[in-house]
């Protein structure tokens, strides 16, 4: 894909590149950007005009767009599998630790556990009903979900070969196997291995990213409101980027082998001591 054309843009706080054999027509570029803007306007907890912001201000019944249905199902399943540790209600905990709309990046009191799902929120298809204002944060699956939504736009426009790169979360369709380096969790100049990505999504999550203080980072355990430690980086491969993205976070709470009982995916977890655990597809792909 060396000769491919990149369409690069900013979206949901990160850099995106859509690579295709031929340049994308302007109308399709506009459609992709509109899709990103719509997604941000619905789901961002950093925008006062978003649906999520409204939900954080006022209890009630809210109609979300179509993608809310699969997203809600996925979160519900992972909430159960992680014993409540992985929850879309983690937004309040993140705000408490300083990861708020104003990016104060200063803790505002002791860690705050997320509210129990059943007690505050009913997520039924695309309808969310909150008994109290709740800070929804779909960060664990949101970027992957948007990757899938952009892929659907490309499909609908008849583009069959593309790679979507959302700052290291990747989806490849209709391409030759794509050789992808796995970034070293402590040094972005290094890779700890190389995998071939073939028609699926590859997502990563790391505990050392978006750090802002002593041991405070963005992967939080919903039952304690505390950052998660020990696993330092994870990678997953799955059919959809939404699932791959969410499972990359779930690996911080649940062993990959246990998640494999429910999900068809490949996984790699690197720990703070530099050791790694992985499923068969990552066998022999790591440097050691």
């Amino acid at each position, binding site marked *: 894909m060396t000769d491919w054309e990149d369409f690069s843009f900013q979206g949901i706080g990160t850099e995106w590149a859509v690579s295709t054999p031929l340049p994308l027509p302007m109308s399709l570029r506009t459609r992709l950007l509109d899709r990103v803007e719509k997604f941000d306007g619905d789901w961002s907890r950093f925008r006062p005009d978003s649906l999520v912001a409204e939900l954080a201000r006022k209890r009630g019944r809210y109609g979300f767009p179509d993608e809310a249905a699969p997203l809600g199902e996925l979160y519900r399943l992972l909430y159960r599998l992680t014993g409540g540790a992985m929850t879309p209600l983690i937004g309040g905990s993140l705000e408490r630790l300083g990861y708020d709309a104003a990016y104060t990046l200063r803790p505002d009191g002791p860690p705050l556990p997320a509210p129990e799902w059943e007690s505050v929120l009913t997520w039924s298809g695309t309808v969310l009903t909150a008994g109290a204002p709740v800070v929804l944060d779909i960060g664990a699956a949101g970027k992957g979900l948007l990757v899938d939504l952009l892929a659907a736009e490309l499909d609908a426009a008849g583009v069959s070969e593309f790679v979507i790169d959302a700052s290291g979360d990747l989806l490849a369709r209709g391409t030759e196997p794509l050789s992808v380096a796995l*970034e070293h969790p402590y040094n972005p100049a*290094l890779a700890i291995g190389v995998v071939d990505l073939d028609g699926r999504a590859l997502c990563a999550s*790391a505990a050392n990213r978006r750090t802002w203080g002593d041991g405070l980072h963005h992967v939080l355990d919903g039952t304690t409101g505390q950052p998660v430690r020990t696993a330092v980086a994870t990678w997953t491969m799955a059919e959809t980027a939404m699932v791959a993205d969410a499972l990359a976070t779930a690996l911080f709470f649940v062993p990959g082998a246990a998640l494999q009982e429910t999900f068809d995916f490949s996984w790699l977890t690197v720990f*703070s*001591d530099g050791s790694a655990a*992985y499923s068969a597809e990552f066998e022999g792909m*790591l440097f050691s």
Partner: protein
Amino acid sequence: MRPSSPKSLPVSRHAVRNGLFAGIAGLSLAGTVAGCAPSSADSTAGSAAPSAGTSALAGSGGGYKDGTYTADGNYVSPNGTETVGVQLTLAAGKVADVEITQHPSNPNTRKFQGEFAGGIAAQVVGKNIDELNVSKVAGSSLTSGGFNQAVEKIKSEAQ
């Protein structure tokens, strides 16, 4: 399952475009690992760790002091206190070696880690991305702003 074996890869300086790095590259040694100074065990300095070897740094023309940099971080996990140690070796201004030097001290953590049904690699090592023949890099998300900040810190503190 057996541990993974080393994989030989074609060595090529071609591979990854600069823009890719700006998008995905992250802060090195951030987070649980605090402080860093050449040959110093002091983990309270709160400075950024040196790093080099990315295209962005290589192009900056600045020289970085050679030496071995170490950083230790202690933290309390659900299993008790853990220690992470990272050691960076700079030679001729580039990262020659990165090692994660210490192990979780708590036996429960080791047990937990040993329970995975998949394969286990005893120690994973890094290779220069520049020297791998790859189209993309999969890492964790970070805005380019954060990356640029890290580069600025490294420039000011490792020179």
